[in-house]
């Protein structure tokens, strides 16, 4: 059972969270200047890595904050977490 470190609440059990999908997919900053290929890529295409995956989780039963998580999809190890608009490497 995953233990996810919420940047605010600390380590909490996965039952308090929902998975929010691939966090490398960032909503276009300028939607009007975004091509249909870019939209397609954003909505549909996934690197789907076998290894480190950067993803969103929502602490929905807790402080209701969205977070970014780097997790290994082969071991389920959680390497780092950060606020949704934060940086995983700091």
């Amino acid at each position, binding site marked *: *059972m*995953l*233990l996810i470190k919420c940047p605010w609440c600390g380590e909490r*059990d996965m039952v308090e969270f*929902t998975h*929010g999908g691939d*966090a490398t997919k*960032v*909503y276009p900053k300028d*939607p*009007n200047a*975004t091509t*249909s290929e870019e*939209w*397609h890529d954003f*909505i549909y295409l996934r690197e789907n890595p076998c290894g480190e995956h950067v993803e*969103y989780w*929502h602490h*929905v039963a807790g402080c*209701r*904050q*969205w977070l970014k998580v780097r997790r290994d999809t082969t*071991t*389920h190890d*959680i390497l780092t977490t950060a*606020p*949704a*608009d934060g940086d995983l490497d700091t």
Partner: protein
Amino acid sequence: MTGQPWRLENGGHIDRSCSLSFAFDGKIMEGHPGDTLASALLANGTHLVGRSFKYHRPRGIFSAGVEEPNALVELRTGNRQEPNSLATTTELFDGLEASSQNRWPNLRFDFSQANGALSRFLPAGFYYKTFMWPANLWLTYEHFIRKAAGMGIASRESDPDRYESRSAHCDVLVVGGGPAGLTAAMTAAEIGERVIVLEQAPHFGGWLRREKRTIDGSPAMDWVDAVSTRLSAMADVRVLTRTSAFGYYDHNMITAVERVQDHVPKSDPFLPRQRLWSIRAKRVVLATGAVEQPIAFPENDRPGVMLAGAARTYINEYGVLPGRMAVLQTNNDNAYRSAIDLLDAGARVTAVLDVRDHVDGHLPNQVRDRGVPILQGYGVVETKGYFAIRQVLARPLVGGPVRRYDCDLLCVSGGWAPQVHLHSQSGGKVVFDAEKGCFLPSEARQNCVSIGSAAGLFTLKDCLKGANGDDVPEQAIKPTWSLPNAPGRHGKRFVDFQDDVTAEDVALAHREGYVSVEHLKRYTTLGMGTDQGKTSNVIGLAIMAKLKGQNIPAVGTTKFRPPYTAVSMGAMAGRAVGHHFQPLRRSPMDNWHHDNGCKWVDAGLWRRPHFYTRPGEDVNSAALREGRTVRAGVGIVDVSTLGKIDIQGPDAAELLNRIYVNGWKKLAVGKARYGVMLREDGMAYDDGTTSRLSENHFIMTTTTANAGPVLAKLEYYLQAVWPELRVQVACVTDQYAAIAVAGPKSRDVMQRLIDLDISNDAFPFMAAAPCCFAGIAGARLFRISFSGELAYEINVPADYGQAAWNALLETGREDGVGVYGIEAMSAFRIEKGHVAGPEINGQTTIGDLGLGGLQSEQKHNIGKSLAIREGLIDPARPAVVGLVPVDGKTWIKAGAQLVENPDAPPPVAMLGHVTSIAYSGELNHPIALALLSGGKERAGEELYAAFPLRNEAVRVRVVSPHFVDPDGERMRV
């Protein structure tokens, strides 16, 4: 009463002063507290307890623990009947009822034993090769195969017992209460760590309970009692017996089942039968012990063949003599302890057969000194007896004359297999140790360590700290998995007793190319039984390795998966069953609805009034009556379940602009507006009215179903995508009770209750304002209409919901106010052509829904760009239309498919489907909404609403979806 002829005068951890009566296959017997069902049966001289899965061969008690392959019984009766229960771990209680399984009519005479005779035609995987002709008979063949297969019979009634789960946290979790586990637990506890110790047996001690061993010169159990008593008394230590750790999940989460009341005759209604523990540990210590392995020799499955360690367990733990004349087959010194204990208990040991050519260990010599012949380099080649073993035939492994030994017990030991299951489940590796002839845990993936015999360390010295055991030196084991038949003989050498997998089956798998471990397992069913191959997997693997001419590691081992021992589904479900499967959400007026004859309908987790019954009414007539009350005067409906999201901040309008397809910047304070939002992929997602309460304050409504998801989405965009927007969102669904008041007289009624001028000029259609309603401060009034009539929606703080509801009924009485449920409400919206869940189904665009005009061209919003893909703007897409029956009276069914010719041969082209239906009180005939390819273009066309599931096809005419008051004049008066 039999008087337990095989019970020893003394010894064992049982209470001879008290007798418990139990029944096996209807026969009443007696045992003592401390017995298991198996030990009590043996005390009464019963070895024969079951039949094997495939050949229905008579089988006896083989082990004394969770590894038992044979002694499976149906425990208890009626709604508490539990098939496949292990006699070897079932604690005896007074009145226990058990019966043997997989036999008919009875254990001694079983028709299916004929399978035994046919066994040569039923090798591994025989069913893949036959039962194919004629094809249409397979279900018939299968019917008999199924009857023959399976083991016990499950109850078909609801389980009367309760279960629960709970979580726990600790610094150190110790799995196993044997010498190693107790020592580790005490070491951690002494430095003040939070410790949890799990022991699957009813008592601590592990194998020390089953041996005559001493620690520091006194009986080992004295040490066990001292340590466990001390542990139990420590503040931050939790000791749990009868608790089996079965799963090792991510991030050091161990799951275990505590059998709280399985051992009591009469259960306490306030206690669960079993409790599921989810334990999050900083460190895990696996002291799970080892399971003795047999050796596969010819006809090794007779009742009376028993693991050597089990034999001495019955003597030392239960005070039962498993046999009076014993033979021992071994490949190691440790098993000689059984010979010694048998001799001490007064049994004869007619011979020890040792596969090793030179036996000169400390323990063997003790046996030798007591006059027991030790035959070196010998192995069993045959056994005699049917319901019980009578004789053992042995010969030198290198060949030579056969010797015969009469016996009623054949003890077998092939060494010990450390229980590495949890270690492996955690992601840890296991390695094969050629000297010890077993798999050992190697590097761990998670923060856990294996100790004691679980790590292949079998002496007391390896387990204890600050205490000394009576270890004696032991001669090396000679790993041995199977023994050959005598020349020309073909005795079955069982590897997996329960599933009747023999060494010959493994050879067949090899011959046919099913050589990878997984293929071997799946083709022969090796290790697939309830014992999960605890005494058979390694042997099967070894035999395959030999056939392939490889060593065991090269063949590999199968992954260990949870659970280590089988877990009742009740324990996994805990409290979340039946009525409590999911929580039930109730509106603030729930009690009133309940007391006033409402019939409920589920809406997600909510329950909502479907309609209010009167004598002789069904849903349709009730809904019609409720609707007419509204059309004629005024009615009220509880709409509290709709999602309400409070949106505040300087950028609130900007957020709405990005979420909804339509524009919000220009919405005036005190006004409401209908909005539709898209999914990221451009499909319609949710709709509702959102009102501007002040410059920076909006209240958004969502559908009941999407209240949660929409809030989560807003939080996502505000936190992850647009953190620069200064907006705060909060769920206020539960904060307000919401009541829609509809009908021509609604204004009159409302005006009497409210502190605002709500005349059409002062409070026009789509107005919104805070107010004081029926003396309730902090209320909010909206002039919105789902019904199409003059209507209002009033929100009051939830605790005042009932007061507001009462005030409306009170005040509206003279106007004939009535209540209506969502069936009538749904009829209104269908008459108006308002789309809802059945139309906004995730497969439709706003264009399909006739809402395309809402899309603002001035701005971008979520989903806008992908909504213009070719497939989403295809004119052939189904769009919302209205339908009426051509005959003006036949009901159209929701879920009907629209076709031109229902009688055409399949595949029939489908043009769309009926989404929502109602009987229009206004038009006095049935109406429907549908999604139809081509949509409004087809207005006037006649089609069929085909419902082949009921062999119906209704002729329908396509019309505008706006059946009533298309221009919406009524709601604006």
